[in-house]
């Protein structure tokens, strides 16, 4: 009897757990919005990175388009996308560390560093593949500098 009950209870718990997991998918539109911007950074970097590594042929126009996109992405005002309570201790659907909300000025500076590196890439991307390669390091470094301080590893 006892045993059945606990199996039943365990079943209920599992259902409840799945319920919360589903509820979390897309529960916080702000998290969805900001991770979408991150994905767009990565997609456009992929175009540039493929050329830098020689996997795709260098194409000045395509490279410039990708660099322009990254610049535009850095200009989006993200103020509404980082509401209080959307850190990874409170909300299991995000990898954003609570430290973000304790260090807004520094997070802003890291965002600005990315914006600067993106502008430098915009100037370099259309010149030639060597210039593009040269601008790649600072751009990637700006992503990692922020991920180092403010992003938890994946689950």
């Amino acid at each position: 009897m006892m045993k059945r009950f606990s199996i039943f209870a365990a079943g209920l718990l599992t259902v409840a757990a799945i319920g919360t997991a589903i509820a979390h998918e897309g529960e916080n539109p702000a998290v969805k919005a900001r991770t979408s911007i991150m994905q767009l950074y990565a997609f456009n970097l992929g175009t540039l990175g493929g050329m830098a590594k020689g996997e795709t042929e260098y194409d000045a126009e395509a490279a410039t388009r990708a660099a322009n996109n990254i610049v535009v992405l850095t200009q989006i005002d993200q103020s509404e996308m980082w509401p209080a309570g959307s850190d990874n201790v409170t909300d299991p659907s995000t990898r954003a560390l609570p430290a973000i909300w304790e260090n807004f000025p520094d997070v802003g500076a890291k965002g600005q560093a990315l914006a600067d590196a993106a502008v430098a890439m915009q100037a370099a991307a259309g010149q030639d593949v060597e210039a593009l390669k040269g601008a790649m390091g600072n751009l990637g470094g700006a992503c990692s500098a922020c991920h180092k301080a403010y992003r938890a590893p994946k689950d």
Partner: protein
Amino acid sequence: MRRFFIFAAVFAVLVGLAGLVLTRPQRVDRTQLDGITPDLARGETVFYAAGCVSCHSAPDAVGQEKLNLAGGRRFESDFGTFIAPNISSDPVAGIGSWSALDLANALIHGTGPKGQHYYPAFPYTSYANMTAEDVASLHSFLGTLPAVTTESTAHEVGLPFNIRRGLGGWKLLYLKPGWVVDGDLTDQQILGRYLVEALGHCAECHTPRNGLGGLKRDLWLTGAPNPNGKGRIPGLTSDQLDWSEADIAEYLKSGFTPDYDSAGGEMVEVIENTSRLSDDERLAIAAYLKAVPVPQIEPPSE
């Protein structure tokens, strides 16, 4: 990572105090360093491959300042705080007066010049596999770095964990020189093994630990809980990391994943070091990772 080291240290002391084993600090036979001509360029490579700078530079130092090995980084825990010492070339505040033999004893046996045991927060369990040539070259290279007079700060660790003698027992259990991945390896994989197992101490973060803080060698590089909070330190075995060898080498150079995400967390400082290695060395690390056996038992899914 920090918490794990701390665990290791704490249990070491406990094991020792329990009187299970009280071992004498081990030392390198001085003849092992005889006749070696140090190579400065090699010493620099060893310095970065072994990541000394990531722990011994001053907290928040950037760029060239990182070469001032003043120490001061704090490794916090519930039991107290370990503070990385000054290992700059200053003869008083740093280790400028140390012989190559002194450095070899520290790196290979975790033993200080006064015969004291070091806490495993200093990853000598990996460095135990360093060659005498590399220790001698590293010793010469460290001598070329700036002398910094900042005093080392004492660890903020209370009784009973501050009794170094107790570490002997832990060392007997977990300071085990020798390779984890053995068998038929190519020359490239053997180079990669040296870079990962001896110098890079990748396993300190990427391998789970047992209750005594020792690495679970049968779950080598299968990933581990993140000691600093949520998330997981990813596994590097081929069942979990399906990147090509070129992709792995690229990540260790630029920090970009094959999807152009960029590395984060504690891996960023590791990549600052691996980005200074040669392409061949990074490819060797990748080739080694492909040769790490995938364990039959499922790693615990925390």
